[in-house]
């Protein structure tokens, strides 16, 4: 009876077909052949790009620092393998536009030689600030796809006195199973990483949340966390997007993060299981983030698998290893099918954010035949953020962007639930992404207009000042001349 009055713990969401069976049932493949060239972008994280400190022609070892972080929010970049630096230049980015960004091209020498790394016996003797420093120096960012620099998040956590650390083992996107396999095979290392994070944030307890479609992962993690009563492992319902931080926090703690606030402001912070694993490797073994497990799946993939690849591997190499049929491939997606980015070709590198690469066939894609909106409001019932996609999209279609913003466009997380459920095949998320971009462009135009006004006013003021000064100097010259003449006349009079 009481539950009638309490808010439901899960808002919206869809139960999409999981399609994880092809990859979740086999172990992670570790024998991916080392590529000849690795293309390492200098910005694989939120914040300022890293600044290279190596030069073309330098020999580097695996794990060596290639570029250092710039500013408060940034992350360094390390060599994923040993070899020679071929180039530091602009190459197409793993982005739907494939526009160029600065990358380091590394030609591998086949030896895959690690630099000398330090193994620490008892990292819990280190100060918490030291943990963040090491995590930052290892270039660790949010491995779930958000790529926020983990060290900054740990520091923020320490400053805000977090009382619960939530470890995100949800992996709610269809097809992806890299976190699932990681939890099954490396549960102890992940729990160690969690303990290190707790130490780094000076937080008491942690909760590991795993969707209930991963029973073996749950058992493995539970067994690994058994000696540590302050780390609880729980199962959460399988529903996309359970992995979204606000949804997860609301389910696990019952608290809702207010709009515009960060989760740390209510005493909760979330890290991905992959991030915890990378933290363990960085602190215990001194190994920076140079590789990650990627799910390669989809109808066009002959050998779908989870495979650990060095960062900077081109997708083409990944696809040839997994025997992807390029003729059947209708779309290449980096990430999951709901929120991932569609890439134009395979000549783009994998980065820290790449949790999966999918090669989907035409019949795995939703029809793009957009029909008029029938106002069925299915999108409203599935929106996890509680927005009204149909009203926003209809206003965007007739260019009433300010109405769309008033309806909450800025709170849209582009999860894709509305597009997924729409019976008229309306690409709702595309409308919102277009509108957000357009609103941002207009704000920039507004700033530029104000800046232009300021510059013009400043210039006019300067011109007036110069004119006034010239006038004053002219006046001064005239009066000085008059004064001289007067003196001269007075002298002459005195003489006569």
């Amino acid at each position, binding site marked *: 009876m009481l539950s009638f009055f309490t808010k439901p713990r899960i808002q919206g969401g869809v139960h999409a077909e999981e399609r994880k069976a092809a990859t979740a049932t086999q172990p992670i493949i570790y024998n991916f052949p080392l590529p000849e060239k690795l293309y390492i972008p200098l910005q694989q994280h939120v914040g300022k790009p890293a600044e290279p400190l190596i030069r073309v022609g330098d020999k580097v070892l695996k794990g060596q620092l290639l570029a250092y972080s710039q500013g408060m929010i940034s992350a360094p970049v390390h060599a994923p393998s040993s070899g020679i630096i071929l180039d530091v230049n602009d190459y197409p980015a793993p982005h739907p536009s494939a526009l160029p960004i600065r990358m380091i091209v590394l030609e591998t020498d086949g030896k895959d030689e690690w630099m000398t790394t330090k193994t620490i016996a008892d990292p819990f003797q280190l100060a918490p600030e030291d943990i963040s420093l090491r995590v930052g120096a290892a270039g660790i960012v949010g491995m779930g796809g958000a790529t926020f620099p983990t060290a900054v998040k740990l520091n923020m956590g320490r400053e805000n006195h977090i009382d619960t650390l939530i470890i995100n083992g949800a992996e709610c996107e269809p097809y992806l199973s890299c976190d699932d396999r990681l939890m099954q095979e490396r549960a102890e290392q992940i729990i160690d990483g969690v303990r290190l994070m707790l130490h780094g944030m000076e937080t008491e307890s942690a909760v590991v949340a795993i969707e209930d479609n991963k029973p073996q992962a749950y058992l493995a993690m539970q067994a690994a966390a058994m000696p540590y009563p302050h780390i609880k492992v729980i199962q959460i319902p399988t529903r996309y997007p359970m992995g979204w931080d606000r949804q997860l926090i609301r389910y696990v703690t019952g608290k809702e993060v207010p709009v515009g606030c960060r989760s740390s402001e209510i005493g909760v912070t979330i890290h991905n299981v992959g991030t915890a694993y990378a933290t363990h490797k960085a602190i215990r073994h001194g190994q920076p983030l140079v590789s990650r497990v990627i799910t390669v799946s989809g109808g066009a993939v002959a050998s779908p698998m989870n495979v650990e690849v060095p960062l900077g591997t081109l997708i083409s190499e990944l696809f040839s290893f997994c025997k992807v049929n390029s003729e059947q491939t209708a779309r290449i997606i980096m990430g999951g099918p709901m929120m991932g980015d569609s890439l134009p070709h395979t000549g783009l590198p994998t980065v820290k954010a790449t949790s999966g690469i999918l090669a989907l066939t035409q019949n795995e894609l939703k029809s793009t035949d*957009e029909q008029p909106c029938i106002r069925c409001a299915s999108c409203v019932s599935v929106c996890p953020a509680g927005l009204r996609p149909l009203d926003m999209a209809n206003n965007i279609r*007739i260019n009433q962007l300010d109405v769309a913003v008033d309806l909450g466009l800025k709170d849209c997380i582009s999860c894709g639930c509305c597009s997924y459920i729409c019976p008229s095949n309306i690409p709702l998320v595309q409308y919102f992404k277009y509108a957000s971009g357009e609103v941002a*462009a207009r*704000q920039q*135009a507004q700033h530029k*207009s104000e800046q232009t*006004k300021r*510059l*013009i*006013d400043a210039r006019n003021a300067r011109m007036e000042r110069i004119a006034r000064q010239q006038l004053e100097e002219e006046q001064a010259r005239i009066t000085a001349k008059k004064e001289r003449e007067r003196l001269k006349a007075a002298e002459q009079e005195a003489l006569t």
Partner: protein
Amino acid sequence: MYVLSAIVALSLLGLFLGLLLGIAAKYLKVESSPIVEKLESLLPGSQCGQCGFAGCRPAAEALAEGKAAATMCPPGGSALAEQIAALLGLDLDLSDVKEPELLVARVSEATCTGCTRCFKVCPTDAIVGAPKQIHAVVADACIGCKKCIEVCPTECLQMHPVEVTLRNWRWNKPTPLFAENEASGAVC
């Protein structure tokens, strides 16, 4: 009889109402239309003349009278067009209007002689340089008014479209296959 009273009555009525309105007009006088002031403050104020009017004030006056379209200012772009339309209560159909391509000037360093003529005329001080030194245009401040191009003796200044990078790349608007209805732009 009726005719006389009709004439008298109507004339008196007319005079009386006219008097009332005259008195009201004196107390409710509107000086200069504040709309024009508001419009002028929205416009960039660079007097570049790309809209076809002599400056931003005449352009504001034309807008207030309805003689100019809301989309007439290229440096303002669609953001400004929206603001003007909101102020004047106009129906704005931006989808038909092609976003005026914002061009910025660029100095070709090979042919620049450092004559300083360009930066003296730039209304936003977007050109930096010194006598006998190669000049450069700060693209962020350039509004594309082309005053510098008119005075450059070696023609080393050219207009280029703003470069699209990952920073300013935007998603396109989805185009539905069903016929776009005319409801958005229909006039009664």
